[in-house]
């Protein structure tokens, strides 16, 4: 049982990061950016390109890929979403545009790297470290550590720093921000940077634990989306409880029923939340979510 609780913690920490990355963009632009799934994939594939194919030192490869993903995120924003926003298209069209962008970017990965599973962790597979009758691998330890550090620090940034406060200000009322002289586009760019950074980290951590393929980002993103809907937008506690709930439900259904029903149970929870508690755990307004 302890081992299952550990598994739940590890997968929920990944979901939490995805959900945070997702909601950072939502705060400022008010739409669900599906193209983030492609950024998740890009993060891991750039590490593969640099460290496995080009034999760069590993840490250097990771830093380089994270930087490239952030640049890609900014490019997406400047070349596509900025123009859409200027034309003030409806958030449904916005959503569809991001879906289209995801398909384009994901196919770029498929074209260059091929669709088969790739391995970036070529080190010897070892029996996990045994801590109190629980096996945990180094990567899993790292995942837990990095995701909690990132989650806490990003939340601190949002709560304490000027930039974070501006992001939240843009979230609550754009027009008022303009009156107060907060540059909306600059704040959006900053939140895009933060969210692309998180997406790249999630991709790398996930690909390190298991293998990767060009479409693995989408599943992760979908779970992140479910977490946001269950947790409620803009609530830290909501995100934590949402990701814990989703991953416990998945692992317990895998344990007590069968792993092929994991997704089914996840989406049953999603739909019942939408019907019974549409504002999520936090109770914050979710009616802004139009999709």
């Amino acid at each position: 049982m302890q081992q299952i609780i550990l598994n739940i913690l590890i997968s929920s920490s990944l979901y939490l990061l995805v959900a945070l990355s997702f909601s950072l963009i939502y705060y400022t632009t008010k739409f669900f950016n599906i193209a983030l799934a492609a950024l998740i994939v890009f993060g891991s594939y750039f590490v593969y390109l640099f460290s496995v194919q080009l034999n760069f030192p590993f840490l250097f490869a990771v830093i380089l890929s994270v930087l490239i993903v952030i640049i890609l995120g900014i490019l997406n924003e400047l070349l596509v979403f900025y123009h859409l926003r200027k034309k003030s298209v409806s958030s449904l069209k916005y959503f569809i545009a991001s879906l289209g962008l995801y398909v384009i970017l994901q196919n770029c990965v498929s074209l260059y790297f091929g669709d088969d599973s790739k391995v970036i962790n070529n080190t010897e597979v070892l029996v996990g470290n045994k801590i109190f009758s629980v096996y945990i691998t180094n990567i899993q330890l790292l995942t837990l550590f990095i995701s909690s550090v990132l989650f806490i620090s990003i939340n601190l940034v949002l709560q304490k720093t000027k930039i974070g406060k501006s992001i939240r200000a843009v979230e609550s009322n754009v027009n008022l921000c303009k009156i107060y002289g907060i540059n909306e586009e600059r704040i959006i760019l900053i939140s895009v940077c933060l969210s692309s950074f998180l997406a790249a980290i999630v991709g790398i951590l996930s690909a390190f634990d298991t293998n990767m393929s060009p479409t693995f980002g989408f599943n992760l993103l979908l779970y992140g989306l479910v977490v946001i809907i269950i947790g409620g937008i803009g609530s830290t506690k909501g995100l934590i409880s949402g990701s814990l709930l989703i991953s416990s439900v998945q692992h317990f259904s895998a344990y007590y029923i069968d792993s092929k029903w994991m997704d089914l149970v996840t989406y049953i929870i999603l739909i019942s939340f939408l019907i019974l508690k549409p504002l999520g755990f936090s109770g914050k307004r979710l009616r802004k979510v139009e999709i």
Partner: protein
Amino acid sequence: MKKISMYLFCIICFLLILSMNSCTNGKRSNEKILVGVVAPLSGPNAHYGEILKNGFDLAFSKDSLYGLKYEDSKFESNSSISAINKLISVDKVKIVLGEVSSDNTLAIAPIAEKNKVILFSTIASTDKLQYAGEYIFRNIPRNKIQGITAAEFIINKLNIKSVAVFGQNSEYGVNITSSFKEHFVNLGGEIKFEGSFLEGNKDFRTQLIKIKESGARALFIPGNENEPAIILKQAKELNLNIPIMGGDGSSTDNLIKMAGNSSEGFYCTNVLVDKSLDFYVKYRDEFFKKYNKEPGAYDAYAYEGAMIILEALKNVGNDADKVKEYLYTHTFKSMTGDLKFDKDGEVNRLWGVYQILNGKFVEVK
């Protein structure tokens, strides 16, 4: 007015495309007579398509009259159906080689049967293909026999009577699991755990813990290569120290590459190849010369299937009915000696058991 010109433009484009198509058709008639292939050339399982292609290309490279026309199935039923429809209606092929997965082969078999086109699979092993029609052939034995081979191996050779079954939820996985379970219980064994996974799943840790708790002394994981590779890794990380056995879908070099050292000692059933036969020795030399690597079992069977088709074509010409008669009535050279097709287009062959030792598949005698 604008609308009408738009329609006109569309019609002209359509006519242009049509005329281009007939041009290419005209060109083709001067070239080789085509045999169709439906195989996954892209997608997460493109690796299987590549293995088949190696075998088919080698067999057809020596022939000046017949050539191959590949269509990508993407390892999906829908794409397989469009692929075979295109081969039959546009390329007018009389013989189709493929597909890889049991699901997709079952999906395209009725189309081949209806159009009186021969479908020859060298890798799809589901039991249901046996009665798919008189134009459907294969040179790989059935899953039923594969399940029996695995069950007998675990009980008799490994001396293990309690097993966990964790198979892929696909035609192939379900088919082989049911035969395995039935036979394992008949032999006096006990199934301690039963579960299944979907293609694309990545986290099997919770099930592996359950398997560990169930006290099973061996694990049977029939599936393709991607998921079993992750299962092997995670089993090792969770210190699950029991013998693990898979089906023929997992017996690829790619699995070893993906699972790394955790694949060491993994058993799996696969088709047999008699390495002392001249037919194999000649094939191995040619394969090595062309691709500069050792052939596996799947590409050997692909080559063998293509050679059988070529022999029939050379003797009776590109006519599906005559080729069908030829296949039913003649004996062919194969990787296991003389080969005959029975009235269902099936072969009477056995499965072997292989084990990964020092990063290579070695037959367990």
